Protein backbone atom coordinates (compact mmCIF):
# COMPACT_ATOMS: atom_id res chain seq x y z
CA UNK A 1 0.00 0.00 0.00
CA UNK A 2 1.80 3.06 -1.19
CA UNK A 3 0.88 6.57 -0.25
CA UNK A 4 2.25 9.82 -1.55
CA UNK A 5 3.60 11.94 1.20
CA UNK A 6 4.11 15.63 0.79
CA UNK A 7 7.58 16.96 0.32
CA UNK A 8 8.85 19.44 2.82
CA UNK A 9 9.99 22.83 1.70
CA UNK A 10 11.62 24.76 4.43
CA UNK A 11 11.25 28.45 3.75
CA UNK A 12 14.51 30.22 3.11
CA UNK A 13 14.82 33.58 4.69
CA UNK A 14 15.65 35.34 7.88
CA UNK A 15 15.15 33.18 10.94
CA UNK A 16 11.68 33.58 12.31
CA UNK A 17 11.13 34.38 15.92
CA UNK A 18 10.85 31.25 17.98
CA UNK A 19 7.52 29.61 17.36
CA UNK A 20 5.29 28.80 20.32
CA UNK A 21 5.75 25.10 19.57
CA UNK A 22 9.50 25.34 19.93
CA UNK A 23 9.12 27.17 23.18
CA UNK A 24 6.83 24.41 24.40
CA UNK A 25 9.45 21.71 24.09
CA UNK A 26 11.67 23.66 26.41
CA UNK A 27 9.00 24.47 28.90
CA UNK A 28 8.38 21.48 31.09
CA UNK A 29 5.23 23.04 32.48
CA UNK A 30 3.51 22.91 29.08
CA UNK A 31 4.66 19.64 27.64
CA UNK A 32 2.15 18.32 25.14
CA UNK A 33 0.50 14.95 25.66
CA UNK A 34 0.53 12.66 22.66
CA UNK A 35 -1.82 9.73 22.07
CA UNK A 36 0.32 7.08 20.42
CA UNK A 37 -1.22 5.03 17.58
CA UNK A 38 -1.85 1.38 18.42
CA UNK A 39 -2.70 -1.90 16.72
CA UNK A 40 -4.49 -4.70 18.50
CA UNK A 41 -4.67 -8.20 17.15
CA UNK A 42 -6.19 -11.32 18.55
CA UNK A 43 -4.68 -14.76 18.78
CA UNK A 44 -5.86 -18.03 20.30
CA UNK A 45 -4.29 -17.21 23.67
CA UNK A 46 -5.12 -13.56 24.01
CA UNK A 47 -4.58 -10.13 22.58
CA UNK A 48 -1.41 -8.40 21.46
CA UNK A 49 -1.27 -4.64 21.61
CA UNK A 50 1.44 -2.75 19.75
CA UNK A 51 2.04 0.96 20.27
CA UNK A 52 4.34 3.24 18.32
CA UNK A 53 6.39 5.16 20.86
CA UNK A 54 9.39 6.55 19.03
CA UNK A 55 11.92 7.87 21.52
CA UNK A 56 10.68 5.70 24.38
CA UNK A 57 13.28 3.74 26.33
CA UNK A 58 13.07 1.34 29.23
CA UNK A 59 14.06 4.15 31.53
CA UNK A 60 11.46 6.71 30.45
CA UNK A 61 8.51 4.38 29.88
CA UNK A 62 6.08 3.35 32.61
CA UNK A 63 3.42 0.71 32.22
CA UNK A 64 0.99 0.59 35.08
CA UNK A 65 -1.84 -1.68 35.96
CA UNK A 66 -3.98 -0.27 38.66
CA UNK A 67 -7.26 -1.99 39.45
CA UNK A 68 -8.52 -2.60 35.94
CA UNK A 69 -6.79 0.31 34.19
CA UNK A 70 -3.70 -0.33 32.10
CA UNK A 71 -1.82 2.87 31.32
CA UNK A 72 1.24 3.70 29.24
CA UNK A 73 3.27 6.80 29.94
CA UNK A 74 6.58 7.93 28.51
CA UNK A 75 8.42 11.19 28.86
CA UNK A 76 10.35 12.10 25.73
CA UNK A 77 12.88 14.85 25.15
CA UNK A 78 13.79 16.41 21.82
CA UNK A 79 16.84 15.13 19.97
CA UNK A 80 18.16 18.62 19.34
CA UNK A 81 21.02 19.70 21.55
CA UNK A 82 20.71 22.76 23.73
CA UNK A 83 20.69 25.82 21.53
CA UNK A 84 19.18 23.92 18.59
CA UNK A 85 16.37 25.88 17.01
CA UNK A 86 13.31 24.18 15.53
CA UNK A 87 12.66 25.36 11.97
CA UNK A 88 10.17 22.76 10.78
CA UNK A 89 7.88 20.66 12.94
CA UNK A 90 5.62 17.75 12.08
CA UNK A 91 5.48 16.06 15.44
CA UNK A 92 5.27 17.45 18.92
CA UNK A 93 7.89 16.41 21.42
CA UNK A 94 6.35 15.63 24.75
CA UNK A 95 4.79 12.86 26.74
CA UNK A 96 3.00 9.79 25.48
CA UNK A 97 -0.07 8.71 27.33
CA UNK A 98 -2.77 6.17 26.64
CA UNK A 99 -4.90 4.04 28.91
CA UNK A 100 -7.30 1.15 28.66
CA UNK A 101 -9.78 -0.54 30.90
CA UNK A 102 -9.23 -4.28 31.01
CA UNK A 103 -12.02 -6.71 31.55
CA UNK A 104 -11.73 -9.60 33.98
CA UNK A 105 -11.03 -11.89 31.06
CA UNK A 106 -7.38 -10.80 31.00
CA UNK A 107 -5.00 -12.80 33.14
CA UNK A 108 -3.26 -9.94 34.92
CA UNK A 109 -0.50 -12.08 36.36
CA UNK A 110 0.80 -13.07 32.97
CA UNK A 111 0.74 -9.74 31.12
CA UNK A 112 4.09 -9.34 29.37
CA UNK A 113 5.64 -6.33 27.64
CA UNK A 114 8.67 -5.71 25.49
CA UNK A 115 10.06 -2.54 23.94
CA UNK A 116 12.13 -2.61 20.77
CA UNK A 117 13.03 0.21 18.34
CA UNK A 118 10.38 2.48 19.75
CA UNK A 119 7.58 -0.09 19.52
CA UNK A 120 5.97 -1.39 22.67
CA UNK A 121 4.37 -4.81 22.48
CA UNK A 122 2.05 -5.90 25.27
CA UNK A 123 0.62 -9.38 25.43
CA UNK A 124 -2.65 -9.74 27.31
CA UNK A 125 -3.34 -13.42 27.86
CA UNK A 126 -6.84 -14.70 28.25
CA UNK A 127 -7.68 -15.89 31.70
CA UNK A 128 -8.27 -19.64 31.82
CA UNK A 129 -11.92 -19.33 32.57
CA UNK A 130 -12.43 -17.12 29.53
CA UNK A 131 -10.98 -19.71 27.17
CA UNK A 132 -13.41 -21.93 25.40
CA UNK A 133 -13.25 -25.39 26.93
CA UNK A 134 -14.04 -28.54 25.10
CA UNK A 135 -16.48 -30.62 27.01
CA UNK A 136 -16.41 -34.33 26.42
CA UNK A 137 -19.80 -35.77 25.77
CA UNK A 138 -20.35 -39.04 27.47
CA UNK A 139 -22.30 -41.54 25.46
Amino acid at each position, binding site marked *: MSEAHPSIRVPVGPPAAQSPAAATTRDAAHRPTITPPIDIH*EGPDGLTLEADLPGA*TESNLTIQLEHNVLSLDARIDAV*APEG*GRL*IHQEYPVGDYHRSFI*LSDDVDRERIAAELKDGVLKIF*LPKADRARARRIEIQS
Partner: protein
Amino acid sequence: MAGPDWRGGWDPFHEFQREMGRLFQTFDPFQSLRHIRTFPAINLYVAGDAFLLSAQLPGTAPDEVELTVTSETLTLRGERKRPEGVKDDSYRRQERFMGRWSRTITLPDRIDEAKVSAQFADGVLTVRLPRAEGAKPRQIAVSSPS
Protein backbone atom coordinates in the same frame (compact mmCIF):
# COMPACT_ATOMS: atom_id res chain seq x y z
CA MET B 1 -15.21 -5.71 13.92
CA ALA B 2 -13.42 -8.51 12.12
CA GLY B 3 -11.91 -11.43 13.92
CA PRO B 4 -13.21 -14.48 15.62
CA ASP B 5 -15.72 -13.86 18.31
CA TRP B 6 -15.06 -15.21 21.74
CA ARG B 7 -18.02 -16.76 23.36
CA GLY B 8 -20.20 -13.90 24.40
CA GLY B 9 -17.97 -11.52 22.45
CA TRP B 10 -14.85 -11.05 24.52
CA ASP B 11 -13.91 -7.41 24.54
CA PRO B 12 -11.30 -6.73 27.15
CA PHE B 13 -10.77 -3.20 25.95
CA HIS B 14 -12.60 -0.13 26.67
CA GLU B 15 -10.71 3.03 26.20
CA PHE B 16 -10.96 6.32 27.98
CA GLN B 17 -11.93 9.16 25.74
CA ARG B 18 -9.65 11.85 27.02
CA GLU B 19 -9.46 15.56 26.73
CA MET B 20 -6.23 16.08 24.87
CA GLY B 21 -3.70 18.84 25.09
CA ARG B 22 -4.90 22.06 23.60
CA LEU B 23 -1.69 22.87 21.82
CA PHE B 24 -1.65 20.15 19.25
CA GLN B 25 -4.05 18.47 16.93
CA THR B 26 -6.02 15.86 18.79
CA PHE B 27 -6.92 12.48 17.41
CA ASP B 28 -9.97 10.42 17.93
CA PRO B 29 -8.47 7.24 19.36
CA PHE B 30 -10.96 5.14 17.43
CA GLN B 31 -10.08 6.53 14.07
CA SER B 32 -7.29 5.22 11.95
CA LEU B 33 -4.49 7.73 11.88
CA ARG B 34 -2.95 6.47 8.71
CA HIS B 35 -4.51 9.07 6.49
CA ILE B 36 -4.03 11.94 8.86
CA ARG B 37 -0.38 11.65 9.65
CA THR B 38 2.50 11.61 7.26
CA PHE B 39 5.00 8.85 7.82
CA PRO B 40 7.60 9.32 9.00
CA ALA B 41 6.94 12.57 10.84
CA ILE B 42 9.98 14.83 10.60
CA ASN B 43 11.32 17.71 12.66
CA LEU B 44 14.18 19.88 11.51
CA TYR B 45 16.46 21.93 13.74
CA VAL B 46 19.34 24.31 13.20
CA ALA B 47 22.23 23.78 15.57
CA GLY B 48 25.37 25.80 14.95
CA ASP B 49 26.73 25.08 11.47
CA ALA B 50 24.52 22.07 10.87
CA PHE B 51 20.93 21.10 10.31
CA LEU B 52 19.62 18.31 12.44
CA LEU B 53 16.78 16.22 11.10
CA SER B 54 14.84 13.76 13.22
CA ALA B 55 12.38 11.27 11.74
CA GLN B 56 10.06 9.06 13.76
CA LEU B 57 10.49 5.54 12.42
CA PRO B 58 9.24 3.18 15.11
CA GLY B 59 9.80 -0.52 14.50
CA THR B 60 12.31 0.14 11.75
CA ALA B 61 15.82 -1.28 11.64
CA PRO B 62 18.68 0.86 10.28
CA ASP B 63 19.12 -1.40 7.26
CA GLU B 64 15.47 -0.88 6.28
CA VAL B 65 15.97 2.81 5.58
CA GLU B 66 17.44 4.19 2.39
CA LEU B 67 18.94 7.64 2.86
CA THR B 68 20.09 9.71 -0.13
CA VAL B 69 21.58 13.17 0.11
CA THR B 70 22.37 15.71 -2.58
CA SER B 71 23.73 19.16 -1.89
CA GLU B 72 20.33 20.50 -0.95
CA THR B 73 17.84 17.66 -0.68
CA LEU B 74 17.52 14.62 1.47
CA THR B 75 15.39 11.60 0.59
CA LEU B 76 14.31 8.85 2.97
CA ARG B 77 12.67 5.68 1.70
CA GLY B 78 11.55 2.43 3.15
CA GLU B 79 8.78 0.01 3.82
CA ARG B 80 7.11 -0.88 7.04
CA LYS B 81 5.75 -4.41 7.21
CA ARG B 82 3.16 -5.85 9.52
CA PRO B 83 4.35 -8.53 11.91
CA GLU B 84 4.48 -11.90 10.17
CA GLY B 85 2.03 -14.64 10.89
CA VAL B 86 -0.78 -12.32 11.91
CA LYS B 87 -3.87 -12.69 9.79
CA ASP B 88 -5.54 -9.53 8.56
CA ASP B 89 -8.88 -10.52 10.02
CA SER B 90 -7.45 -10.94 13.50
CA TYR B 91 -6.94 -7.18 13.89
CA ARG B 92 -9.26 -5.42 16.25
CA ARG B 93 -7.72 -2.06 15.70
CA GLN B 94 -5.21 -0.68 13.22
CA GLU B 95 -3.93 2.81 13.72
CA ARG B 96 -0.24 2.42 12.96
CA PHE B 97 1.07 3.30 9.52
CA MET B 98 2.22 0.33 7.45
CA GLY B 99 3.43 0.10 3.89
CA ARG B 100 5.88 1.84 1.59
CA TRP B 101 6.85 5.37 2.37
CA SER B 102 9.13 8.05 1.04
CA ARG B 103 9.88 11.63 2.01
CA THR B 104 11.97 14.31 0.34
CA ILE B 105 13.16 17.36 2.19
CA THR B 106 14.58 20.46 0.58
CA LEU B 107 17.03 22.14 2.92
CA PRO B 108 17.33 25.89 3.30
CA ASP B 109 21.09 25.87 2.51
CA ARG B 110 23.53 23.70 0.63
CA ILE B 111 25.08 21.00 2.76
CA ASP B 112 28.39 19.20 2.75
CA GLU B 113 27.37 15.71 1.60
CA ALA B 114 30.69 14.21 2.68
CA LYS B 115 30.09 15.14 6.29
CA VAL B 116 26.53 13.90 6.69
CA SER B 117 26.10 11.39 9.50
CA ALA B 118 23.08 9.47 10.71
CA GLN B 119 22.21 7.44 13.75
CA PHE B 120 19.24 5.42 14.82
CA ALA B 121 18.02 5.03 18.38
CA ASP B 122 14.70 3.88 19.86
CA GLY B 123 12.83 4.29 16.60
CA VAL B 124 14.10 7.82 15.94
CA LEU B 125 16.48 8.49 13.05
CA THR B 126 18.69 11.53 13.53
CA VAL B 127 20.63 12.92 10.57
CA ARG B 128 23.26 15.61 11.01
CA LEU B 129 23.67 17.76 7.91
CA PRO B 130 26.58 20.21 8.15
CA ARG B 131 26.29 23.28 5.94
CA ALA B 132 28.65 23.57 3.00
CA GLU B 133 31.47 26.07 3.49
CA GLY B 134 30.12 28.49 0.91
CA ALA B 135 26.64 28.36 2.42
CA LYS B 136 27.65 29.67 5.80
CA PRO B 137 26.56 33.21 6.34
CA ARG B 138 29.26 35.86 5.92
CA GLN B 139 29.15 39.30 7.35
CA ILE B 140 29.49 41.84 4.58
CA ALA B 141 30.50 45.27 5.62
CA VAL B 142 28.29 47.97 4.23
CA SER B 143 30.17 51.14 3.58
CA SER B 144 28.56 54.46 2.95
CA PRO B 145 29.61 56.31 -0.17
CA SER B 146 32.26 58.86 0.61
